[in-house]
């Protein structure tokens, strides 16, 4: 008799540190600026709000399948994983360290609604610093990859950070976008996007749609081991950062807008892209899903 398959351990349900320990090689994680150093947000204290010892993100060194990496994991349960000054500085510092240390890569476990509104300008500034440091690390030859499978997804400024990575792995439950559904509903009205329609929200922002649009590279099960394997796989592919490539990406995006700009629902887009049974996509497991969309995918260079 063969051994039963290892039980799935949900990535989405795990906390930031547990995800990090499961994605990296066992026992390899060494945290930098850990909670005992108590580098907390000065802004939350000024607003009389409770702070977190690590400001909602764990960063440090580790190995992934034996290769040295730097890694960060955002805690979505603390203020929606939002980026405040300290939180952002830890990510920026990690990416700058990567450019200097030249590890095999940087793995970002993204789970964030974007900028922490309580810290306003400091948070916005932090996101721009993260972006600059990320691109500098890539320019220095260090691949930066992102994993999206937490409850908060990856939105706002962190959505931009995600799309600036060399590669992204997502679960269907992970979501990626710029303006989140509530923001669109609030600013454009419920006719534009009804956030009570959960299926629509996931069709629009979920990992599967991002795969069809070519914005995410790998679709994985909501499983810690699957995300670990995906992170290792992403580190082997590098997306060269050149002006020519950016121009190609711009062209591809313009083509996408021309082809699909009038689609009211992702299902319409999947049909227009040539998926045979588009309404079935949300129900498919990753493997049959990837087979069904193989020819419809529109990778952004």
């Amino acid at each position, binding site marked *: 008799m063969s051994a039963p398959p290892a039980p799935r351990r949900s990535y989405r349900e795990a*906390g930031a*540190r547990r995800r990090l320990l499961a994605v990296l090689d066992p026992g390899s994680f060494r945290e930098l600026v*850990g*909670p*005992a150093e*108590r580098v907390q947000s000065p802004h939350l*204290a000024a607003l*009389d*709000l*409770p*702070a*977190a*010892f*690590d400001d909602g993100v764990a960063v440090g060194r580790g190995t992934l399948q034996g290769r040295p990496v730097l890694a960060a994991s955002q*805690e979505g*349960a*603390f*203020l929606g994983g939002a980026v405040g000054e300290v939180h952002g500085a830890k990510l920026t510092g990690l990416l700058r360290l990567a450019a200097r240390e030249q590890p095999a890569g940087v793995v970002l476990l993204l789970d964030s609604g974007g900028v922490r509104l309580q810290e306003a300008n400091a948070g916005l500034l932090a996101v721009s610093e993260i972006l600059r440091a990320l691109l500098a690390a890539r320019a220095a030859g260090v691949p930066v990859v992102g994993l999206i499978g937490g409850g908060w997804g990856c939105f706002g400024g962190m959505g931009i950070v995600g799309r600036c990575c060399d590669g992204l792995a997502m679960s269907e439950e992970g979501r990626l976008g710029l303006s989140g559904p509530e923001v669109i509903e609030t600013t454009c009205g419920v006719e534009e996007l009804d956030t009570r329609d959960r299926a629509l929200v996931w069709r629009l922002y979920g990992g599967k749609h991002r795969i069809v649009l070519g914005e995410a590279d790998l679709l994985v099960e909501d499983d810690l081991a699957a995300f670990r394997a995906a992170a290792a796989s992403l580190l082997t592919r590098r997306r060269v950062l050149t002006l020519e490539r950016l121009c190609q990406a711009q062209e591809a995006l313009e083509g996408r807008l021309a082809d699909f700009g009038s689609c009211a629902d992702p299902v319409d887009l999947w049909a227009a892209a040539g998926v045979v049974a588009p309404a079935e996509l949300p129900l498919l497991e990753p493997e049959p899903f990837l087979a069904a969309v193989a020819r419809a995918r529109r990778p952004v260079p």
Partner: protein
Amino acid sequence: MERLSYEVEVEGPAAPRAPPALVGVVASGNLEVLVEPGDAGRCRVEIATSARGFGEIWEAVVRDFAARHPVAGLRFSVNDAGATPAVVTLRLGQAVEEYLGATR
């Protein structure tokens, strides 16, 4: 925010030294607990809480906790976002487990 601090004298052997451990998360009705080595013979608990005016209940929870767990020589720091006493008790217990787990 209210800051509270309690120090309980604890008998028994000092807990072994281990790297700091962090459990829980600062979210509504929840809290995070950081455990570190502290002063011998004492258990110290420092709390920052968003719920004001519950000092007596915190003290009762802390004393009960210190009587039930091997916490001599440990320092606990808490960031609380309005957790109930039951949740606090569970998190403190979890923190001890996590800290001592690293020494086994």
